[in-house]
């Protein structure tokens, strides 16, 4: 089915937050095309009457008690942060909607 274009790869990369290079666009377009053609064969046997399986083991209703467990301390929480300030994770300016 697919013949995946360079533009589509660029779109996927943007959705996935990957700043791919021009060379990668060419490489990935070719490789994704081959892979997607190959995996599309799942459609050959996946008929409408077959229910999908999302979980290998059929469990239901696994709940946790509403009991507080110790949290990490602020220092521990921030220990691996690339940048922190005033007990918070410091991140570059956020574009977009106000929360």
């Amino acid at each position, binding site marked *: 089915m697919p013949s995946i274009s360079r533009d589509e790869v660029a779109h996927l990369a943007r959705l996935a937050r990957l700043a791919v290079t021009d060379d990668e666009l060419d490489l990935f377009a070719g490789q994704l095309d081959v892979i997607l053609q190959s995996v599309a064969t799942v459609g050959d046997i996946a008929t409408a009457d077959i229910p999908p399986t999302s979980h290998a083991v059929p469990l239901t209703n696994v709940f946790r008690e509403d009991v507080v467990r110790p949290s990490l301390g602020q220092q521990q929480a921030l220990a691996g942060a690339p940048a922190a300030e005033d007990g918070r994770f410091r*991140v570059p300016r956020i574009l977009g909607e106000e929360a």
Partner: protein
Amino acid sequence: MTADLTRATAAELAARIANREVSAVEVAQAHLDRIGEVDGAVNAFLHVDTEGALNAARKVDEDIAAGAHVGPLAGVPIALKDVLTTEGVPTTVGSKILEGWIPPYDATVTRRLKEAGLVILGKTNMDEFAMGSSTENSAYGPTRNPWDTDRIPGGSGGGSAAALAAFEAPLSIGTDTGGSIRQPGAVTGTVGVKPTYGGVSRYGLVAFSSSLDQAGPCARTVLDAALLHEVIAGYDPMDSTSIDAPVPPVVAAAREGANGDLSGVRVGVVTQFSGEGYQPGVLRSFEAAVAQLKQLGAEVVEVSCPSFDYALPAYYLIAPSEASSNLARFDAMRYGIRVGDDGTRSAEEVMSLTREAGFGPEVKRRIMIGTYALSSGYYDAYYGSAQKVRTLISRDFDAAFATVDVLVSPTTPTTAFPIGERTNDPMAMYKADLCTIPANLAGNAAMSVPSGLSDEDGLPVGLQIMAPALQDHRMYRVAAAYEVARDAALGAPVISGVPQLAGVAR
């Protein structure tokens, strides 16, 4: 003395430590020394925790000296795949993006190992985010196969398997999403087990594909694998997909199997896993193994599982889809590396630059495949259809296990291939997991046990044994019986054929 310690089985070491014939510290030091000698050539370890290992060993020695009750593997060294978190010890998942990250918590598997007195030597190399079948996708250089250092040790858990074959550790932990324990086991001549999905907690296992990932034991003998299996398995409320049921009696089954009698056991040979694409030497080794099972008294029949032909494509949709979501958290905001934060770029730009620099090509490729397969408009044709194939594969297993106790096949179609051979051909690489993937999709138990060497290249071959969910003990019994017969036929364990590593004195 030192060589003696690094070549012993885990069961022997545990007994000698418990009897105070040898101290846990001596055992740990022997393995640390061995790592120091050979790991330059093998690159099985990403991080060696010398101090942590010696402290843990010392603690075991003290407990034993004090007469405390210790577990059956207390004091035995173990190598941990770098995909499991270790509090205070770096965890990278073989990726640049997590370089320098020190987790603030232990995975449940890590905690159980520590509680059982195992001595964690360090963290083993792997394909980045467990995506690969050769360990060439590690950001920290490939691991080499101790049987031939120009060849791959399998993947993604190549480090865990190579550490065993190089006698750097008697035990290791792997994780298996599509074969990442079994395929490295097969190509390094070691034992690797993927327990039933939900049998071992995934809490602290850095997720690749949540519905497929499963941690399991790696060892040089079936009994050692079983002993480790019982340490790490069992219900964990921190993992909602963990099964709240008793651990299958795998140690008892391994001991029973070692008696060498498989009469009454029905073994099914999966007909789909042979023919084109299979190395003749691998098929001959497999046929010899099946003949041996018959000699042990097993009843062998052929079983057809037609939808297994669609397992590989289904897997290469489901795993990348889940991965595209699981790996979204690596965004340079809370942990890991950050690239391009020059005060002018936005968070979105920094995320994209970091992920571009931090992920290798295979990871990016799979993220994009998964992003594509989950997109509206493509979901039904790709992800949705793959989930249906999953249903069909489970039905094939159910039908098969209605007539046989275990299924067998080669673990992987070929022996270890040369490093670099398949790096530019993703589809060829993916085929290494052809036989192992169905058990991940259905969630049942499966393992690989060495079936000797391929007659054309002298490299190890693996026999895959598959059992129904929560019947893990069935395959241990078969594997243990086969192991005894095989060693008797070969005159020595397969692993004893590992050549001396170049430039290293034995």
